[in-house]
């Protein structure tokens, strides 16, 4: 009890920000994944297998900070869990960046128009590479300043629960969306042009 009080007393603003930054990290990844849904269901573009793979790796990246948020339910997030979370994010982001780089290089030679639509002149897989690089940088900075940012005084609030449920919902929605795309074939066609479940 005394230790807990002392810990809370020593917890600076940055330590609290460290915990809330994990929320921002997960929400940011969910926002990018929601952007993918916008292109899939509003602009009616069919995600290719490499696009779907990049979504998987984005979820695995967000798994790290989600782990930190969830551990906050027990009170203080210890250093081991904190670095585990951002370690998960970095390893997953490196793997995701490989997929994005592969897709960029597939289409980089002119006059290849690239695959799918663009945002501010860049294709979605290029934005995905930028997202993975930013994810690595953000996780790296948090680890460099681990002493200042590790959540000594984490409050798992309803906002934390909402972020976790948002993350779960995004994953579940992607599972359903890819199942609609694949149908009962368990496989995606080379270049999807319809939702197989309806045929």
């Amino acid at each position, binding site marked *: 009890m005394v230790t807990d009080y002392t810990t809370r007393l020593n917890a600076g603003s940055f330590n609290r920000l460290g915990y809330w930054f994990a929320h921002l990290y997960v929400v940011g990844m969910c926002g990018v994944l929601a952007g993918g849904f916008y292109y899939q269901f509003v602009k009616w573009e069919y995600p290719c297998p490499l696009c779907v*793979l990049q979504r998987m790796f984005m979820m695995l990246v967000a798994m790290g900070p989600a782990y930190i948020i969830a551990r906050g*339910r027990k009170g203080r997030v210890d250093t081991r869990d904190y670095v585990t979370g951002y370690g998960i994010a970095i390893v997953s982001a490196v793997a995701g960046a490989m997929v994005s780089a592969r897709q960029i290089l597939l289409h980089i030679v002119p006059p290849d128009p690239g695959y799918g639509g663009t945002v501010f002149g860049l294709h979605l897989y290029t934005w995905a590479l930028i997202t993975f690089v930013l994810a690595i940088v953000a996780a790296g900075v948090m680890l460099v300043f681990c002493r200042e940012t590790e959540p000594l005084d984490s409050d798992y609030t309803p906002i934390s629960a909402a972020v976790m449920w948002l993350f*779960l919902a995004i994953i579940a929605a992607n599972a359903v969306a890819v199942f609609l795309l694949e149908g009962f074939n368990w496989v995606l066609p080379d270049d999807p042009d319809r939702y197989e479940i309806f045929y």
Partner: protein
Amino acid sequence: MCHRDHSMDTIIFLLILATAWAVHRNWTRYAVLGLWFASLVASLLLFDHHVTSSLNLEW
């Protein structure tokens, strides 16, 4: 063309969902790491499945 061949995406998404559920329910560190690692390896194997030709580029 984006690329060729097929995948088992639905199963991997369900594996990732299971990992997120384990995170959400605060399963033990090794259970979470085990599920995350299985998801990561499955995704990498799927990626490897799609990479079947070298890029026609100079390095």
